[in-house]
């Protein structure tokens, strides 16, 4: 699936949820099915410090594709990072850098993108793009 197709699928899951709590339940559930991050990466070095929740992200480059792992100490940020991991994993650095992550807005999480939000979603996206950029310049240029 392309990044767009994956986003569209997530949007369709959220589309009919009217109630905020149902939306958040789905986000939390997304986190539960997340494989998490290898223990060795749950360190200061891989920490994206949101104000209140801790999120760790790590990425590897294999055969031209980027593979992400992410985890949080909170269920909600955990759900968000897990969606980002699912959407961006197994794509090329160029695809990732070119991606427009419109699902965030469409599922009603836009407020979480503001730099002052405490779960640091913006920082997560930024860090994941950084990985892609680093791989691109390291392996592809």
């Amino acid at each position, binding site marked *: 699936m392309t990044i767009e197709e994956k986003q569209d699928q997530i949007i369709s899951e959220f589309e009919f949820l009217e109630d*905020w*709590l149902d939306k*958040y*339940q789905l986000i*939390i559930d997304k986190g*539960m099915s997340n494989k998490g991050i290898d223990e060795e990466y749950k360190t200061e070095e891989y920490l994206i410090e949101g*104000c*209140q*929740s801790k999120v760790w992200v790590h990425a590897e480059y294999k055969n031209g594709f980027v593979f992400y792992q992410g985890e949080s*100490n*909170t*269920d*909600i*940020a955990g759900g968000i990072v897990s969606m980002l991991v699912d959407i961006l994993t197994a794509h090329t650095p160029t695809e990732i850098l070119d991606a427009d992550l419109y699902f965030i807005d469409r599922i009603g999480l836009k407020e979480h993108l503001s730099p002052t939000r*405490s*779960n640091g979603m913006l920082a997560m996206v930024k860090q994941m793009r950084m990985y892609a950029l680093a791989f691109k310049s390291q392996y592809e240029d």
Partner: protein
Amino acid sequence: MTINIDKIREDFPILKKEVYRKPLVYFDNAATTQKPTCVVDTIVKGYYDCNANIHRGVHFLSQQATEAHEAARKTVQQFIHAQHAHEIVFTRGTTEAINLVAHSFGISQCSDDDEIIITQMEHHSNIVPWQLLQSIRNIRLRIIPFDEKGVLQVNQLESLINEKTKLIAVSHVSNALGTTNPIKEIARIAHNHDIPVLVDGAQSTPHISIDVQDLDVDFFAFSGHKIYGPTGIGVLYGKEKWLEKIPPYQGGGEMIHKVTFEKTTFNELPFKFEAGTPDYIGSTALATALDYVSNIGIENIAQHEHELLHYATEKLSQIDGMRFIGEAESKSGLISFLVGNIHPYDLGTILDKLGIAVRTGHHCAEPVMQAFNIEGTVRASFAMYNTKEEIDILVAGIERAAKMFRR
């Protein structure tokens, strides 16, 4: 006398607001309180009707504005029962008031190796100013600890005092634990050793009747916005003898007596500490807020909030996995808690979606969190306009939210 909450709520238009299509339940009063219409009216009227720079003008409006600002000082004086109006210095808030003392008292009264005693439950604004002082005077901080219930170990104070102790700076009510500290006793012990006491009254002034003379404290700081007043205005009370003794904090207009390039002499109290154009609209609106509180009666407010605290404690304790952070007998205005292993951020986010505003995190009191070995808490803090029905909504909200998490 009981107070008429319905009538009070009418005075606070924001309480009618809906968020996420749910009626707003505002339990973040320790961060800031909502404002009654009379306070906002004073601000509007100030700018529309009575605006001119104070103290300097010969003209009508300037004199009117000056009188309003000085009348506000008198209102504050009476509200906290200070002996003189000139012992009231307007600041931006508690933070600026403490920084003023840390700087002016610190550089004039402290030498290298001197000690300042604070407590383990201080807000960062009563920790960091003293650490900043350390770059000018190499002072040491000594800490009065609290026990597992969050009760300050005042019996350890004597052993922390020595000939190098220059000041004891303590919060009246902890914003993270709710603990009310025995200020009178602390002041008595301190004064037996001729040591002055500074009190951070940010969380006590909105909830407890304050009498700085009865408490016998040397400095007392509070913020207007936490007691139904506007943001950007606060108060430092200082005993006359101390305010006379310590030097100005900032230099500028209004605080001087005479300036030449060789020498400047300073204005009398309190103007020596009010450099530049003060927030004279804010001070007048703060006075309106204090009058509003006085009209309802701080004792009545205290009683109502005490009932809320008691009711909330009882109801919350029935929730599975409820853990209170701060279980002192003597508490004021707020409850800090955790539910099971649910992260405070998660719980706060869901409560928000239910229209309930609580605060989550370390509440700018990281040493308190370190003492309990936790990252943060959920904090519900009360004001005069809160009701038992709102507490019921909070309890139901927590129960609803708790079902959503895997932790």
